[in-house]
């Protein structure tokens, strides 16, 4: 009741302000549309931000609002400053009490990663939520700009978004004329999973001149059998690992000496975190993947 009274008084004040100064209204409201199509308007730049996914943490930092992040969820390991921040649980189970106690004015959620019931409860309690999940390169720069708009850090955020946009354009141009090479990207070993062309990883492969042998499949992350990989006989096989260090995830393929990728020694590891998160670090991931595919072409 107390808060409703305050809200009413605040709304009345706002109304008077708008009527008195019609021009200032647009300055007071900061609006952005999230990745579910919901429009969020806040009256002042967000000062107390909480992020509910490691990717969201990275994007808020990219938007120049890192110093406004109050708390993060597990596995928010980039940038290093995020490791110093308090935790409020994991993206699957958020500690609602700890979250509310921090009195956030903006909670950045993950469209498909957070439990819908918990996000709905936040909205019912009047917390401003902004759901994000970029699925394209353009989506990454756009979400950085939208977060910067909400946090009032437009100079840094828009510059970073532009840097990413320019970086993608430059890499696209650099690898536009390269020789196409059939590639298989292994997302998971057991069960065997890959990506199609709609997936961000699929788009990275394409940019580097890789022809994803399973690119036309229906599902974003199809489960496949080893047989179809042998049948497709890609010239290179890539997978993600911690920091891109070689491990045993691709050993299974070495049994098949007749496989072109094995014969030509074209089994590669790339750092898993930059390629699987839709953040500016995709630029690093693209450079790594393109480099691996370059060496693959030389091996042919």
């Amino acid at each position, binding site marked *: 009741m107390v808060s409703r009274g305050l809200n009413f008084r605040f709304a009345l004040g706002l109304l008077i302000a708008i009527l008195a100064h019609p021009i200032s209204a647009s300055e007071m409201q900061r609006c952005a549309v999230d990745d579910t199509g919901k429009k969020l308007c806040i009256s002042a730049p967000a000062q107390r931000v909480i992020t509910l996914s490691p990717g969201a943490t990275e994007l808020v930092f990219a938007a120049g609002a890192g110093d406004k992040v109050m708390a993060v969820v597990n596995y928010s390991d980039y940038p290093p400053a995020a490791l110093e921040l308090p*935790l409020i649980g994991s993206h699957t*189970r958020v500690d609602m009490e*700890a979250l509310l106690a921090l009195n956030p004015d903006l909670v950045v959620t993950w469209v*498909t990663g957070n*439990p819908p019931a*918990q996000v709905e409860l936040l909205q019912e309690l009047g917390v401003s939520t902004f759901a994000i999940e970029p699925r394209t390169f353009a989506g990454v720069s756009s979400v950085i700009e939208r977060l910067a708009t909400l946090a009032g850090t437009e100079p840094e955020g828009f510059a970073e978004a532009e840097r990413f946009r320019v970086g993608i354009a430059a890499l696209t141009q650099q690898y536009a004329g390269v020789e196409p090479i059939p590639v298989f990207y292994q997302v998971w070993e057991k069960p065997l999973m890959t990506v199609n062309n709609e997936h961000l990883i699929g788009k990275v492969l394409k940019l580097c001149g890789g022809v994803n042998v399973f690119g036309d499949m229906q599902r974003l992350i199809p489960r496949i059998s080893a047989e179809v990989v042998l049948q497709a006989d890609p010239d290179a096989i890539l997978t993600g690992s911690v920091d891109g260090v070689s491990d045993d995830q691709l050993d299974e393929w070495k049994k098949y000496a007749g496989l072109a990728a094995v014969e030509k020694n074209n089994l590669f590891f790339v750092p898993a975190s930059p390629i699987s998160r839709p953040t500016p670090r995709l630029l690093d991931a693209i450079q790594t993947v393109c480099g691996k595919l370059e060496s693959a072409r030389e091996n042919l």
Partner: protein
Amino acid sequence: MTRSLLGLGMLALASMAFALALGSVTVSPADLWQVIQGEGSTLHRTLLLDLRLPRTLAAFGTGGLLAVAGALMQVLLRNPLADPYVLGLSGGAAVGALLAMLMGMGTLIISGSAFAGAMLATVLVFGLAHGTGSWTPSRLLLTGVVVAAGWGAVITLMLAITPSYKLPGMLYWLMGDVSYARSPWPAVVVLAVSVVVIMPLARNLNVLARGPMQAAALGVSVRPLEWTIYVLASLLTATAVTTAGSIGFVGLIVPHMLRLILGNDQRIILPASALAGGTLLVLADTLARTMIAPEQLPVGVITALLGVPTFLYLLHRSR
């Protein structure tokens, strides 16, 4: 006998007070008292009235529902291994919920669809077990177990063909957790009403537990009674599953635990199950959300960690 119920009632109240007082944010007793009086800061009011109270009630209702449903199933099937899910009810509910999620529905429709799935599972097993010939508990049990296996296969199939971005939401639902409960009222109201409804039948249930022949000889109309239990237990389970997903263990262990302490008198066991099941889940949920806060544990971990040693101790002592 009423003394033990009174004791359990006190325990239930104590567990709820414990749940309200404890959280990852410390609220002092003085602040607690202010909120009870209708004052206190906005944060404290939100924590207690919007987070802890609904969640505690949902946990109590769900735990009570599952324990009573388990006690009824064990009498109906005359099988100590029976639990609320043994006849495939949670499977039906899960298929309903997952189907709604696959179609991108909101939480309200997902709950409705889960309930409809549970009811469909009930009717399906009822119809199949009824068949043309005579009806026996073992026939009902066998039908239920096979239908449950069928639901399991459908769930696996749905998970396998679902676009990956919809998978997390489905897995949360399947794991079951009180934190996903949206409103405690269906569970609490259904629990209260069903205990009132079942109490007059408790004496007949005592007779039925000794076997249908004896019950018939003593003037109990066995068939109608059995179907009443079946429908009631299904309704209880469906409400519980709709509230918080399929939380295991409570429905199996709580009635057994109480039988070891209080003897096998349904007039005591049924209300005692409602109280003890609720208490167990409230305690388990409180520990789950505070033990390693801000990390939150799934409630099933704690129910088992609390329940297994307690049950084994009681079993050992009873010999």
